[in-house]
């Protein structure tokens, strides 16, 4: 239950707006989740403090609260995602930096060995004083690339022009996922004073395909079939990401039924391939002619069945 906002901020009922603001800032600094990355309760404390200040920091809302017109929650808004929640972002955190371990004496070799390859300066390049010259690692650059669905599935090479005018060939690996980042070591900004170049981070978005969608390593395709194909079964041509293949539709296929084309999906991390899932969609003829209608009339007299059996009563 929401506590009294005066108690949360630790101020008296008759505190001035200035006192309230000062109390709030002090608490906000101590409890901001991004300044307390390992403290799970900080989010809750901070949002309590923020909603208390939402009310008391605004003279009008404070008045309404004092008069009992609004409760201690005020108008609640959903918690935003804090920066610290991205500290473990897959594909590397574009801003995280490690200053290195050169101050750790003999251990520094051990740490550099295990983390050295990962340690890098983020948005703010770090300097290192070496006698008179300053050695500095180059800036990392970020590039956003949009590719087609099929390029992501089969892999491709794309030539792009980086912000600094340099042309780079980017190899899109087979099976790349939407939002994945490709890191090109040493392709960022040049280093200073003999320092190493920064890295290029290419963030890849995948444009949706009009027919195919992706579920993990499987490709999903909705395949319309005719009424007679559903009843009698058929052999049909199905598009896959690598070309058309023929597939057998079983006799009596239902709409929504899923058939599996083994190995026609996306390359998996283990080196195998996912499947293509073909979801059948029975498509009626454009017009229901008299012949079909008459046939159905007689057919249902003797073959009535209940497709909704087992759904039970009520909702």
């Amino acid at each position: 239950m929401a506590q009294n906002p005066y108690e949360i901020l630790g101020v008296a009922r008759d505190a001035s707006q200035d006192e309230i603001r000062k109390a709030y800032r002090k608490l906000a600094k101590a409890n901001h989740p991004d300044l307390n990355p390992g403290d799970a309760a900080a989010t809750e404390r901070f949002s309590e403090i923020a909603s208390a200040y939402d009310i008391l920091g605004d003279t009008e809302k404070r008045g309404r609260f004092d008069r009992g017109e609004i409760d201690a929650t005020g108008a609640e808004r959903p918690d935003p995602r804090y920066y610290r929640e991205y500290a473990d972002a897959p594909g590397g955190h574009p801003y995280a930096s490690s200053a290195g371990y050169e101050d750790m004496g003999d251990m520094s070799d051990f740490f550099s060995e295990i983390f050295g390859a990962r340690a890098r300066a983020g948005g703010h390049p770090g300097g290192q004083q070496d006698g008179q010259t300053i050695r500095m690692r180059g800036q990392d650059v970020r590039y956003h690339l949009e590719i087609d669905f099929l390029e992501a599935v089969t892999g491709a090479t794309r030539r792009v022009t980086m912000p600094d005018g340099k042309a780079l060939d980017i190899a899109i690996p087979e099976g790349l996922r939407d939002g994945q980042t490709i890191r090109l070591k040493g392709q960022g900004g040049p280093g200073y004073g003999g320092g190493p170049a920064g890295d290029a981070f290419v963030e890849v978005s995948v444009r949706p395909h009009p027919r195919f969608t992706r579920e993990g390593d499987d490709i999903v395709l909705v395949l319309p079939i005719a009424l007679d194909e559903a009843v009698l079964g058929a052999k049909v041509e199905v598009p896959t990401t690598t070309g058309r293949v023929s597939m057998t539709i079983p006799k009596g296929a239902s709409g929504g039924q899923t058939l599996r084309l083994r190995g026609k999906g996306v390359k998996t991390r283990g080196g195998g391939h996912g499947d293509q899932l073909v979801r059948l969609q029975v498509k009626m003829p454009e017009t229901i002619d008299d012949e079909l209608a008459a046939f159905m009339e007689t057919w249902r007299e003797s073959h009535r069945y209940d497709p909704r059996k087992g759904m039970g009563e009520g909702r």
Partner: protein
Amino acid sequence: MRYTEDQVVAEVRTLTVERLRAWVAEGWIVPATGETAISFTEIDVARVRLVCDLADEMAVGDEAIPVILSLIDQVHGLRGELKRLVSAIERQPEPVRASIRQEIAARD
């Protein structure tokens, strides 16, 4: 999910496009360059929100913000490395973990 400049401004309550551009120019926020325009990720939006919180809610001055960001980034980097180290230790056989525990206790 990616955001354009306008979408970021719409997403963060106290942000204006002038402020966002100034922060990008300062290098506090580093959006990705694209074929047609710059674009932001959810990480960038969360970082923008953090800068807003620092500037507006905590009244941190412009000179202090890059210092704070750099320290937070280092903490994230270190915590990431610490996490990998701890998970490597966790996967060791019990005698190895026990001797690591003893070593740490002996130095406290």
